[in-house]
């Protein structure tokens, strides 16, 4: 919705700014009033909007799944149970197909990632100005509603996965084994410095690519929606509808990719070379 009073640039910036809570330059705590102010707050600030939405979606996911799990029946499942079982079965198939070790963590983790990321991505399909306008009524200047367009959220997930992977690598192969894997690959013990450099880059590339892939895809998708919203209102549907339909594919695909890569990294942590 491009109103006459604000320019396109302002509109886009407005949509790309988080509602950040942190410490102002003058020492008081509160919401940042602009992107620059948010940057000045440094690390100890919180993106209330994306984090709140992500938390709410996570709680919703856990609530629904837990409700179904509590009332689960081994007989003929009802509609909701059927739906939940379909997702669980899908995740379970993927885990079993790629991960051939015993682990109690990986399947629930894959399920959490898939559903949670999917829910966060789906927020992208909510009409772009709907929730921000609603937020404005309650005095919120900025409201980014798609958690996965916030690099903090996606990198948070990716780092968590990375930590779990490293943890299981060390647990499975021992600290020495893990270090050996970094040091003696791919060129044997005489190429140790090169090995170390290559393997560490390889290792660090995993969480970064994992987090940034999701972020990039969703950020770009959101950006297109914002640009479409700059058009006159009577023509917007002609672009936003096809894009939304196409975006459904990206939303599911990105959630799926995130899950699959998590499983693959976990499998690599467990596999012996």
């Amino acid at each position, binding site marked *: 919705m491009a109103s006459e009073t604000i320019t396109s640039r302002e509109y886009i910036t407005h949509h790309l700014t988080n509602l950040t809570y942190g410490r102002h330059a003058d020492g008081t705590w509160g919401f940042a009033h602009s992107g620059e102010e948010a940057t000045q707050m440094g690390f100890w600030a919180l993106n209330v909007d994306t984090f709140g939405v992500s938390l709410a979606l996570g709680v919703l996911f856990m609530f629904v799944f837990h409700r179904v799990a509590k009332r689960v029946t081994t007989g003929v499942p009802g509609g909701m149970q059927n739906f939940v079982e379909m997702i669980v079965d899908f995740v379970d198939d993927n885990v079993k197909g790629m991960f051939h070790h015993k682990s109690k963590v990986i399947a*629930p983790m894959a399920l959490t990632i898939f559903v949670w990321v999917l829910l966060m991505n789906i927020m992208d399909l909510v009409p772009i100005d709907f929730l921000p306008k609603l937020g404005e009524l309650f005095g919120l200047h900025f409201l980014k509603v798609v958690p996965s367009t916030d690099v*903090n959220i996606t*990198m948070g997930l990716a*780092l968590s996965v990375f930590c779990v992977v490293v943890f299981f690598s060390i647990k499975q192969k021992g600290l020495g084994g893990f270090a050996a894997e970094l040091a003696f690959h791919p060129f044997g013990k005489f190429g140790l410095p090169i090995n170390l450099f290559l393997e560490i880059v390889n290792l660090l590339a995993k969480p970064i690519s994992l987090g940034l892939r999701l972020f990039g895809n969703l950020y770009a998708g959101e950006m297109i929606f914002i640009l479409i919203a700059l058009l006159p209102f009577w023509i917007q549907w002609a672009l936003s509808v096809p894009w939304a339909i196409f975006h459904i594919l990206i939303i599911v695909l990105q959630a799926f990719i995130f899950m699959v890569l998590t499983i693959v990294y976990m499998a690599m942590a467990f596999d012996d070379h």
Partner: protein
Amino acid sequence: MNINATILGQVISFAIFVWFCMKYVWPALIGAMEERKNTIADGLEAADRAVRDLELAQNKALDQLKEAKQEAAAIIDEAKKRANSIIDESKDKAREEGDRLIVSAKAEIEQESNKAREELRTKVAALAVAGAEKILERSISEEDNRDIVDDLAAQL
């Protein structure tokens, strides 16, 4: 686009969600699904077994039917044979009976004729005596000639 504490919040909430999912969601759901899978597999197996059993039972029934038919045929054969033999036997018996009847009838006839001859002989004797009496009315007494008359009658 700033990296800030949100990332930590996300890491913590992720850890909590994964823990919750691991504890309360995944095992219950996967357990129920596994159990249902087993139930269905058992059901299918039972159905297979039932089909096999049915086939077996049908074959058995067919065999028994065949056996029963053969037995019935054998019994009928036997019965026919028995009937024939009974008929032959009774024919023989009837013939024997007939022969026996004929023999006895002949014997009776013989006896009757003997008897009649005997009677006739006595009657002829009496008649001869009566005739001779009439001829010899006065001169000859019956007592004096009795032995001659008897002798005559015996020669008849």
